[in-house]
C-alpha cells in the first residue's frame, strides 16, 4: 500500500465513522417551548420584553440548543405567526449563522422526513441559490473539514446540487493530483453546460455526449464523492443513466454513496 493511499484512507476514516453513528432526533423542551409561545403571543409589550430577556439568557448559555427549540416550535406551527417565530426571533435574540448551522445540520440525520425537509428549508438561505444562480455550499466547508459529514447531510448536499457538493468535497478532500482535479472540473463544467442548454431549450447531443463521457469516467473514481456526484446526477436526470450504472452505485463500497442512492 502506498504512502499516498494510506494518507487518503486516513482522511476518509472519520467520515466513515461519522456515517455509522445512530440517527439524531431533536427533542422538544417543554419549558422552552412555553417561553417561546408566550413571547410570540405576548399580550403586552412588557410580557414580550420579559420573555425576550429570558430567551436571550438561554441563547447566551447554549445558542444551538435554543435554535433547535425555535426550529421545532415553528415546525409544529399551524399559524403564520407561529410558523414565522423562528425567523422573527432570530435577530432580537442575536442568533448567529454558526448557531443555526450547528443546530440544524444534524437534523438531516433524523428519521423524520418532515424535520429533514424543515432543516433544508431553514438552511437554504445559506446556500444562496435562486432560479438563475446555482447553490454554493462554501458555508459548510468548516463542518465537512472537521469530519462531521454524515449520511443524511451528504444526501442533502448531493441531491440539492451534485455540482456544488462536488466542489465542496473536492475543496476539503483535495483531488490528489492535478489531472484528477482537471477531470473533476471538466465533469462539473460538462454538467453545467448540459443543464444550461436544457434550461434554455437548446438541447445538444454533443453536450450530452461529453457529459456522459465524464460520468462514465467518474463512476469508478477513487474518491467516493466523485462517485456520489455521478449517482446524484443520474438520480436527478434518469435518462442519462446507462445500463447498470446506478445499480452499481447503489451497492458502492462507501456508505455515503449508498446513502445518496438509497430510495
Amino acid at each position, binding site marked *: 500500500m502506498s504512502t499516498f493511499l494510506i494518507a487518503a484512507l486516513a482522511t476518509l476514516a472519520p467520515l466513515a465513522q461519522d456515517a455509522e453513528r445512530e440517527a439524531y432526533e431533536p427533542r422538544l423542551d417543554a419549558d422552552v417551548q412555553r417561553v417561546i409561545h408566550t413571547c*410570540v403571543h*405576548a399580550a403586552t*409589550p412588557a410580557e*414580550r420584553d420579559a420573555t425576550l430577556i429570558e430567551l436571550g439568557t438561554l441563547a447566551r448559555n447554549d445558542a444551538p440548543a435554543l435554535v433547535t427549540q425555535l426550529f421545532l416550535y*415553528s415546525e409544529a*406551527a*399551524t*399559524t*403564520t*405567526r*407561529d*410558523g*414565522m*417565530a*423562528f*425567523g*422573527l*426571533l*432570530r*435577530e432580537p435574540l442575536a442568533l448567529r449563522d454558526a448557531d*443555526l448551522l450547528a443546530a440544524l445540520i444534524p437534523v438531516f440525520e433524523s428519521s423524520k422526513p418532515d424535520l429533514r*425537509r*424543515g432543516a433544508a*428549508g*431553514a*438552511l*437554504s*438561505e*445559506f*446556500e444562496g*441559490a*435562486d*432560479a*438563475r444562480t446555482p447553490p454554493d455550499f462554501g458555508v459548510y466547508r468548516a463542518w465537512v473539514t472537521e469530519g462531521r459529514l454524515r449520511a443524511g447531510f451528504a444526501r442533502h448536499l448531493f441531491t440539492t446540487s451534485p455540482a456544488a457538493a462536488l466542489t465542496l468535497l473536492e475543496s476539503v478532500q483535495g483531488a490528489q493530483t492535478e489531472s484528477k482535479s482537471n477531470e473533476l472540473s471538466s465533469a462539473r463544467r460538462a454538467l453545467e453546460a448540459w443543464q444550461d442548454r*436544457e*434550461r*434554455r*431549450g*437548446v438541447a445538444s447531443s454533443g453536450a450530452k455526449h461529453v457529459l456522459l463521457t465524464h460520468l462514465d469516467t467518474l463512476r469508478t473514481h477513487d474518491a467516493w464523492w466523485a462517485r456520489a456526484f455521478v449517482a446524484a446526477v443520474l438520480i436527478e436526470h434518469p435518462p442519462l443513466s446507462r445500463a447498470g450504472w446506478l445499480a452499481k452505485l447503489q451497492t458502492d463500497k462507501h456508505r455515503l454513496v449508498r446513502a445518496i442512492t438509497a430510495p
Partner: protein
Amino acid sequence: MGHRRSLARCALAATALLVSFAPTTPSGAVASVTLTGPTEIALGGTVQLVIDASPPGGSLSVTLEPLRLGATGAQRTKLAAPPVTFRVDGERITLTALETSAGVGDVVLRADYRQGGMLARARVALTVVEGNATAYRPQFGAGYAPLPRLAVPDHLETHATRGPGIRVHGAGETDPSSEDDLIEVELSVSHASFEYALRRSSAALAVWTTRNKVPGTQLAFTGNVTQGFALPGGTRTAWVEWTGAHGTAELSLEPAGSATPVDRVRFHTFHSIVMALGGESQVPSDPVDPNHGTFVVGLALYANGYDVFLYDEDNVSPTGAGSIYDEIVNAIQHRGVEQVVSFGYSHGGGSTYDLADRLDANRGSIGTFSIPFTSYVDSVENDSDTDTAMELRYPPSSLYHANHYQHGSFFEDLGLDGGPVPGSDPPPTGLDVETTPWGASATHFLVDDYQQVTDFIAANLDVRVTR
C-alpha cells in the same frame, strides 16, 4: 343537484296498457292495431304501431290524442298533428314522443276505416321522466382535497366560460398529480327502467366509467352516441376526458334510441392554471380556513370556473423548483395551458416571485406562455423558512401585479411586513392598507383576510385571465 322540473329536462315515457282488436269491420274487412317495440318510451323515443288490414288497399286513419306524439309512416315525414291517413298495405307507423308538460297523461290511438267505425284502440300512459347530468369542478390528485367536490351550478352547466372546465389530456401528459384530468359527471334519472345513452358533439370527449381509466371501462361511441346503458337505481357516474385540441363540446344524456336530451353539459378546455400560495404554516384545507385569505380567494375562483390549485408555499424552493413548477410546466407542455397565474401571502408572495423567476429563466425550454396576473399580500422573501425580508421585487415577466401590504409594529406582528413594489396595482407601488379606513389596524397576520383585499385580487384576475 336538486330535483329538476324544467321542460328541457323532462322526458316522456309511454306505457302500453292495452291493445284491443276489432277483427271485422262493417264492410267485412279485417284489421288490427298492435303496439310493438318498447313498452315505455321517453322523450324522443319511439314505439311502432303496426297495422294489419285485409283486404289490402283500403284507407285507414290514425288519431293520436292528445297531440303529444308525432307519427311517421312509411315514406312520410314526422307529423305532429292527426289525423294521418294511410293506404293500408301492411302499414307500419312509428310514433315518436315529442314533448309533454310535466305530469301524467293518456294517449288514445285509434285506427278507423273511413267508412267504418273504430277498429282498434291502444291506450298509452305517459309519464314524465326527469334527469340530470351534473358536472363537477376539476379534481386534484386522488380526489378533490384540499378543494371541495363542487358541482357546477345548473344555470352554468352550458355556459361557455363559467361552465364545466376540463384540462386537455395531451400526448405525453405525465399526470404529476395522478390521473386527475377527468371530470366527474353524475348522471341521474327518475326512471331507471329505460336505457340511456350519451351523445357528444365532438370526438375530443372520451367517457370512462372509472376515474382511473381502468382498461375496458371506456364507453364506445358510434356516430358520437354510446350504446344504451342502464342506470341502476337511477344514477351512474361518468368520467369525462378531453383528448383533442382546445375547444368546447357538449355531452348529452338521452334515452337510448332518442336524439332528445334529458340534460346536457358543455365543456370548455382550460387555457390557464392558477396557483394560490398560502403563508408560512398555512396548509390548504377543506373546508377552507376563513383566516387563510389566499385560499379563500382560490376557492372563490375555483367555484367560478378557474383551474385553481391551492398549495403550501413550501412546495416552491428558493430556486422556484418543486412540485408546483413541475405542475405548471406539464400543463404548458401537455395540456395546452397558455396562461400562468400565481398569487400569495407572506412567504407565499416570496414564492410567487421565485416561481415567476424560474418560469421566466427557463422560458426557452418550457414553451409558450404568459403570466397575465400575479399578486402579493404582505409579501416576504422566501429564501428560507426563516427569511423575514420584505419581498419588494416585481415578479419577472408578469403582465399585471397587484400588491397589498401593511407596516404594523414590533409588538403586533414582530415587525413582519411586506412593502411597496414598483409597477404594482394600485399604482404606483400597491396599497398600504393601513392608509385606508378599513385596514387601519392591519397586522401581518390579518392583512390577507380583508374582504377588500380578496375581492381586489379576484376581480382583477377575472378581467385578465382566460379560464
